[in-house]
C-alpha cells in the first residue's frame, strides 16, 4: 500500500514541484475511479478530480496532517463529487428513488441454492489458482470487474472503491463516509461478494 509519508507533505508545503507531480500522477487513476463512483459522466468526473486538486492547493497551508495526505485528498473528492451528484440527482426519476435499497441489509451474499438444506456446499467453488495471470488479470476480467463495480448500489460502490481500488485503510474510510466500522465491513462484504460473483460468471 502506498501511503504518503509525513515528509511528502512537508515537501509539498515547501512547494516542491516534483512531489506534486508525483502525487497527481499516482492518485489520478484512483481519484477518477472514486469520482466515478458518484458520477457516471467521465468528463464531469475528470472535472471533479481537477477541482479537488485546486481545492487541495488552496487549503494546503491549513492542512495539518491529522489524517494522511491521501485520506485528506480523497475526502475532498468525495465532498465535491457528492455535491455534484446532488445537483444532478434532481433529474432522478421517481422509480429510481423507489428502487434505493437499504445498504446495510443482511441477506445472503451467495446464492442459497448453492448450499444443501444443512448449509454445506452442494458443489464446491472452482479453484482459481491454476488460472493463468493473463486471464485472471486480463482485459476481459478487468472489464467484468469494472462493470460489476458500476452496477453496485452507490453506498457499496463508494466503500469498495475506497478500500479495494484506492487502497485506503478501514479506519479512514469509515471516517470519511461517516459510518461505523461495522457498517463499513457489511457494505464492503456485499460489494466484494458481488464482484467475486461477476468474476466467477466469467472464470467459472
Amino acid at each position: 500500500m502506498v501511503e504518503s509519508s509525513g515528509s511528502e507533505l512537508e515537501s509539498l508545503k515547501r512547494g516542491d514541484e516534483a512531489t506534486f507531480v508525483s502525487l497527481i500522477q499516482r492518485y489520478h487513476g484512483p481519484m477518477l475511479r472514486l469520482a466515478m463512483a458518484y458520477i457516471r459522466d467521465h468528463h464531469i468526473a475528470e472535472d471533479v478530480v481537477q477541482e479537488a486538486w485546486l481545492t487541495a492547493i488552496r487549503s494546503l497551508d491549513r492542512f495539518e496532517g491529522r489524517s494522511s495526505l491521501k485520506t485528506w485528498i480523497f475526502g475532498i473528492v468525495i465532498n465535491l463529487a457528492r455535491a455534484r451528484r446532488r445537483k444532478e440527482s434532481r433529474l432522478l426519476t421517481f422509480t429510481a428513488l423507489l428502487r434505493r435499497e437499504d445498504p446495510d441489509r443482511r441477506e445472503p451474499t451467495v446464492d442459497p441454492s448453492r448450499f444443501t438444506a444443512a448449509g454445506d456446499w452442494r458443489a464446491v467453488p472452482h479453484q482459481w489458482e491454476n488460472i493463468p495471470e493473463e486471464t485472471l488479470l486480463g482485459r476481459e476480467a478487468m472489464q467484468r470487474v469494472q462493470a460489476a463495480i458500476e452496477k453496485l448500489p452507490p453506498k457499496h460502490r463508494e466503500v469498495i472503491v475506497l478500500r479495494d481500488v484506492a487502497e485506503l485503510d478501514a479506519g479512514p474510510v469509515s471516517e470519511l463516509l461517516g459510518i461505523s466500522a461495522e457498517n463499513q465491513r457489511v457494505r464492503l462484504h456485499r460489494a466484494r461478494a458481488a464482484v467475486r460473483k461477476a468474476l466467477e460468471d466469467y472464470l467459472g
Partner: protein
Amino acid sequence: MKCREVVELMTDYLEGALTAPDRERFEQHIVGCDGCRAYLQQLRLTLRAMRSVEGVPIPDRVQTELVRAFRNWRSASR
C-alpha cells in the same frame, strides 16, 4: 459453523474483525473444507484483480494546468 455461515464471515476474517474464538472456529472450518477454502481464495484473487484495474493516466492538459496552479500558490505564499 456451516459453509453457508462461513462465507458471510469472510470479510470480517480478512479484516481481522472476528473475535478470537470465532476466528479459531473459522480457521478450523476452512482447514477441513475444500469449498470454503476455494471461496476464500477466490475472494483474495478478486481483491488482486481490483487492485490491478488499470490506472487512468492524467491528461497532459490537466497536469499542465495543475502544475501552473501549484506554482502560483507557491509564488503567492513566498
